[in-house]
C-alpha cells in the first residue's frame, strides 16, 4: 500500500516556509478560538457562580406577595418565624444550607456624604454567608452585635471609611416611616464583585429585624443545594402554601438566556475564524496542485487512480492540520491555563444584580469544548481540502502532462 503520509511529508517539505506559515495560520486560529472559548466559559461560569452565590442562591422561598424590587419590610410581605421555615427546608436531603435574610432600603451618611444602600440582615453563623467573610480589614459580624455593620470595600473607599469609623444609617421601616441609628464599621468585605460590594451592607438578622420593625420576620429563605440541578425537584418538595418558591433558573432567566446565547455566539465566531484559516490552507493546497500538475499527470500515466490522488492531497492536508491544530491547541491550552490562574482584570463592569461578574475573569477551558474545537478544526480543514484534491484527481493525464511542457 502506498504510504500517503510519507509522500505528504516530503511534498510539504518542498516549500517548508509556505507549509510552516499555513500550519501557523491554523495554529493561531485554533489557539485564538481555544482561548476565546475559555474566556467565554470563564465569564459565564463566573457570572453564574457569582450571581447564584451572592444574589439568587439555588432556591428562594418568599411570601407569595413579596416584590423583591421594592425591598418592603411591611409585615404582609414577609415570612413569619423564618428560622423554623429554614430548619424545615434544611432538613431536606438535597439541601446544603437554608438561611433567612431580610432586605431593607437605607441611606448611609458619613462625613457629609450620603449613599443609598441595600441593607441585608443575615444570620452570621450560616455557611450561606461565607462569600462575605473575605475581609479587607476588621472582623465579621457576631449574631448578638447591636451596633456593628459590615460594608463593602468600594463603598468604604467612596466614603473614606475605615474599621471603627461611625456611620449614620437611615432605614425605611415596616410601618412606612424611617428610623436612623449610628453604627460602627466592624469589617470591610470584598466578594471580588464591585457591582455587588458597592451597594450592600450587612447587619445581623436580629438587629436588622429590630431596626426595621420587621419583628421575627424575613424577606426570604435563601437556599443552597448540594447539586443545583436538583432545584426543580426540591422546589416541588417545599410546601408552597402562602409561599412563592422559585428556582435559580426562574430567578436568573436573563443569565440562563445569555449563557445559551453565548454558546451560539461562540459557534459563529468559530466558523468565521476557522473559515479564514482554512482558506489559507486551501490556498496552499491549490498552489501545490497547480505547481504539481505535471507530476499529477505522470502519476496518473503510471496508473494512479483519482481516489489515490485525492488521498495523497488529503494526507498533506491532514499533516498540516495535525501540526497546526496540535501547536494551536497547546498554545491555546497554555494561554487558558495561565489566565485561568492569574485572571484578566476588568474592574467594575457596572452590571446589575441579574448578572454579577467578578472584577477579574478567570478563563476556564473544559475538555469537551477543547475536543470539540480540535475535531472541528481538523474536519473543517479536511473538508475544505477536498476541493483542491478533487481538482487534482479530475485532471486528464494528457492535459496535465501537456501543461507542463
Amino acid at each position: 500500500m502506498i504510504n500517503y503520509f510519507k509522500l505528504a511529508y516530503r511534498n510539504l517539505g518542498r516549500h517548508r516556509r509556505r507549509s510552516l506559515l499555513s500550519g501557523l495560520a491554523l495554529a493561531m486560529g485554533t489557539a485564538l478560538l481555544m482561548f476565546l472559548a475559555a474566556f467565554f466559559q470563564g465569564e459565564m461560569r463566573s457570572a453564574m457562580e457569582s450571581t447564584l452565590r451572592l444574589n439568587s442562591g439555588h432556591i428562594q422561598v418568599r411570601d407569595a406577595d413579596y416584590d423583591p424590587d421594592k425591598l418592603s419590610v411591611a409585615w404582609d410581605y414577609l415570612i413569619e418565624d423564618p428560622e423554623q421555615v429554614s430548619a424545615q427546608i434544611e432538613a431536606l436531603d438535597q439541601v446544603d444550607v437554608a438561611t433567612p435574610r431580610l432586605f431593607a432600603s437605607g441611606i448611609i451618611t458619613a462625613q457629609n456624604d450620603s449613599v443609598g444602600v441595600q441593607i441585608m440582615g443575615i444570620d452570621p453563623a450560616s455557611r450561606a454567608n461565607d462569600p462575605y467573610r473575605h475581609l479587607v480589614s476588621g472582623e465579621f459580624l457576631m449574631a448578638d452585635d447591636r451596633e456593628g455593620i459590615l460594608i463593602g470595600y468600594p463603598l468604604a473607599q467612596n466614603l473614606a471609611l475605615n474599621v471603627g469609623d461611625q456611620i449614620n444609617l437611615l432605614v425605611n421601616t415596616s410601618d412606612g416611616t424611617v428610623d436612623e441609628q449610628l453604627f460602627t464599621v466592624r469589617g470591610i468585605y470584598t466578594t471580588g464583585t464591585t457591582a455587588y460590594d458597592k451597594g450592600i451592607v450587612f447587619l445581623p438578622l436580629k438587629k436588622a429585624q429590630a431596626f426595621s420593625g420587621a419583628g421575627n420576620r424575613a424577606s426570604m429563605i435563601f437556599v443552597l443545594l448540594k447539586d443545583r440541578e436538583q432545584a426543580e425537584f426540591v422546589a416541588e418538595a417545599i410546601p408552597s402554601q402562602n409561599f412563592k418558591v422559585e428556582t435559580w433558573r426562574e430567578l436568573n432567566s436573563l443569565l440562563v438566556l445569555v449563557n445559551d446565547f453565548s454558546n451560539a455566539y461562540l459557534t459563529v465566531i468559530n466558523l468565521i475564524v476557522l473559515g479564514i484559516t482554512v482558506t489559507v490552507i486551501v490556498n496552499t493546497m491549490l498552489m501545490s496542485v497547480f505547481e504539481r500538475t505535471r507530476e499529477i499527470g505522470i502519476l496518473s500515466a503510471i496508473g494512479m487512480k483519482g481516489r489515490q490522488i485525492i488521498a495523497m492531497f488529503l494526507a498533506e492536508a491532514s499533516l498540516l492540520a495535525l501540526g497546526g491544530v496540535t501547536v494551536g491547541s497547546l498554545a491555546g491550552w497554555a494561554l487558558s491555563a495561565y489566565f485561568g490562574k492569574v485572571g484578566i482584570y476588568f474592574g467594575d463592569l457596572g452590571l446589575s444584580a441579574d448578572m454579577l461578574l467578578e472584577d477579574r475573569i478567570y478563563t476556564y477551558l473544559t475538555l469537551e469544548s477543547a475536543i470539540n474545537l480540535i475535531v472541528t478544526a481538523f474536519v473543517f480543514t479536511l473538508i475544505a481540502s477536498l476541493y483542491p484534491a478533487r481538482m487534482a484527481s479530475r485532471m486528464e493525464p494528457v492535459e496535465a502532462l501537456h501543461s507542463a511542457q
Partner: protein
Amino acid sequence: MEVAKLTDVTRIYKIGEVETRALNGVSLTIESGEFTSLVGPSGSGKTTLLQLIGCLDQPTSGKVIIAGKETTGLSRNQRADLRKGTIGFVFQFFALIPTLTAYENIEMPLLLNGKTAAQRKQRVMDLLSAVGMTDRANNRPDQLSGGQQQRVAVARALATDPKLILADEPTANLDTENGEQVMEIMKKLNKETGTTFVFATHDPRVIKYASRVVTLHDGLIEKDSKVNGK
C-alpha cells in the same frame, strides 16, 4: 501477437471555434516485440498517436484495442487500471517525482500494482542493475544527471513488466553520449525481455535503433517500413 491495434482513428482537438485534426483516420497494428519509431515533423500527430496507444487520451472516432481490450468508452479509472499493468511510459522531460529517490520512483508503479515489499525490493534492485543505477538508488532526481534520470525513468517504465513501453522523444533533452546509453539500454531490454517499444521521435539516433519506422504527415501515415535497426 498484436499488442496494440488502431482502426480508422481520428482525433480532433477543439480550441474555441477552431478545430485541429491531429489524426485523420489512422490504422496501425503494433506486434509484440517490435521496436517501432513514429517519425515525422512537428504537428504530424506522433505524440497524439502515442497518447492514444497509451490510453492517456481517447479518439474522437475509431477504435483502439490495447492488449486485446477495447479502450473506447473506458472511464478515467478504468484507463488508469489498464495503463498500470500493461503500459510503461518514458517522457521527453525527465518525468520523475522529485520528492522520491531513484529507488522509490521505480517502486511507485509496483506499489500501485499491489506488489509485496519483498517483490518490490527484488524487482527494483534488478531494474536498477539493468540500467546501471544501483549505486544511485538513494539519490533524488535533483542529484542525478539528465541521462541518469532518463535511465531511472526507463527502469520505472519497465517495473510492472508491461507488454508495451511508449517513449515520447526520450533522447530530446540528452547529449549524444547519454542519448546513446539510454537507447542501448532500451534496445538491450527489448532483445532480452521481448518488451515492445514504441517511440515518437525525429532524432536520427533513435531511428537508427528501430526495427520498424512509421512516418506520419498531417495526421496520416505516410510510410510504414520494416528496417534493420542497430
